[in-house]
């Protein structure tokens, strides 16, 4: 299954490599698009030195980590949110006659290797922030854990978004509110949000574990909302639970499609 996935990716990459100028242009534009969010943060901090108690480098750290998780998922998983186009065109059937799961095929469908540019951009921002901050090196292990947890959570969100489109075939944009919305949410420290919202994204939909809770640990900071220390480490568990729920939702979606037709 993994081999099939990478084979599909490789085939798409090779096809894109036949147009190197276009590829280079799109990679550059990916860089620029991702750069807007950084520019916004920089402009905010051109007007203030702290935002809700966090410095510019701390915000860039949180942004970088979340963005790295997001762009990795955006590159390797996000194509699944085009499923409503396939349902409407009838091409989902083409995926279902293959001896491979639909999820793998859809996430690899029309893989855009040029999105790697955005991954690099996020890594650079994260790298800069880590270098500029004086982090406790004994806590640095949390950073890769954080990024991987984030990838799993975003992958789960995209899978939910795909499953949603089996039912909301005419309104696929709703899924964007969850995937891109979560990215927007994670770009800034949660201390800017209202307490109820933060509770919701910690206990109901565990988005706080993408970068906020583990990030507090890496930054050696206390939670302004006063959550206990052990919660900093719940990321992987939360991600796992969310992933399982997403897998169930996806299976349900496919089952729904196969029992109602298109």
């Amino acid at each position, binding site marked *: 299954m993994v*081999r*099939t996935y990478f*084979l*599909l990716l490789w*085939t*798409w990459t*090779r*096809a894109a490599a036949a147009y190197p100028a276009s590829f280079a242009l799109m990679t550059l534009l990916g860089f620029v698009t991702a750069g807007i969010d950084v520019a916004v943060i920089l402009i905010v901090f051109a007007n203030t030195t702290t935002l809700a108690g966090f410095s510019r480098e701390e915000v860039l750290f949180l942004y970088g980590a979340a963005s790295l998780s997001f762009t990795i998922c955006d590159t390797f998983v996000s194509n699944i949110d085009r499923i409503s186009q396939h349902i409407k*065109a*009838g*091409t989902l*059937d*083409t995926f*279902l*006659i*293959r*001896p*491979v*799961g639909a999820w793998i095929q859809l996430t690899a469908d*029309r893989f855009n290797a040029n999105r790697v540019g955005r991954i690099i951009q996020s890594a650079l921002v994260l790298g800069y922030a880590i270098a500029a901050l004086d982090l406790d090196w004994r806590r640095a292990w949390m950073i890769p854990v954080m990024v991987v947890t984030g990838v799993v959570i975003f992958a789960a969100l995209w899978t939910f978004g795909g499953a949603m489109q089996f039912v909301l075939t005419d309104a696929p944009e709703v899924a964007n509110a969850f995937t891109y919305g979560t990215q927007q949410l994670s770009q800034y420290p949660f201390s800017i949000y209202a307490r109820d919202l933060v509770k919701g994204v910690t206990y109901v939909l565990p988005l706080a574990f993408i970068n906020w809770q583990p990030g507090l640990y890496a930054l050696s900071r206390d939670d302004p909302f006063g959550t206990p220390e052990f919660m900093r480490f719940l990321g992987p568990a939360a991600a796992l639970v969310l992933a399982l729920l997403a897998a169930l939702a996806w299976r349900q979606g496919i089952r729904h499609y*196969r*029992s*109602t*037709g298109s």
Partner: protein
Amino acid sequence: MIELDRVGRSFKVKRNVVHAVQDLSFTVSAGEFVGYLGPNGAGKSTTIKMLCGILTPTSGKVRVAGLDPSRRRTALARRIGVVFGQRTTLWWDLPLTDSFQLIRHLYRVDRASFRTRLDELAETLDLGGFLRTPVRQLSLGQRMRGDLAAALLHAPEVLVLDEPTIGLDVVSKAGIRAFLRRVNTEQGTTVLLTTHDLGDIERLCRRVMVIDHGRLGFDGTLDDLMATAPGRSSLEDVVTHLYTGTTS
């Protein structure tokens, strides 16, 4: 090879229940070449989808190559080949040869067998000239030949075709018919062919099934079919009579 036992499929369309297929039963043995006819909306595509596992039946049993398509979809996928006339199963933006390579890996065909089969298919279907062309730039006839090759690369036991000759010119049709006949006689592949083109039926099928309003109206040989309307000499007349006659 293909068994349907009292299969039914209903859809809920805005508070009405539409029975696309009702109480459908037939058996196709290995190596047969069966034509599947019916007016538009009769339930042909619905039957095909249920055979492939794309759609689950609301009642009854379906078995293809001994497997239940709704439960063993991926296992079955290795043993059947499907051609949709109106949609391609190839990757639209990629060159034809890339689609074939992907299929080789998806279906886990070993390199040697793949090479032999591809060379054979490329020769019989005359694909050489456009193997490197992206599928979206192919003409309809070329794309159809590509789809046929793609469906057969993994040497399936059953081949299901949903209107494969639609929109093709006379010469292309003849070529595809000859090819299908060879596949059936030389490889022993069981073929189920859905078509509106009665020429396909006449030249290829010994057995014909006619479906109308979701029910099987006729199941027998071509001669038996002609006998249902004595006095009408062409297959077209006979089938027209059958369609209009069985309107409920």
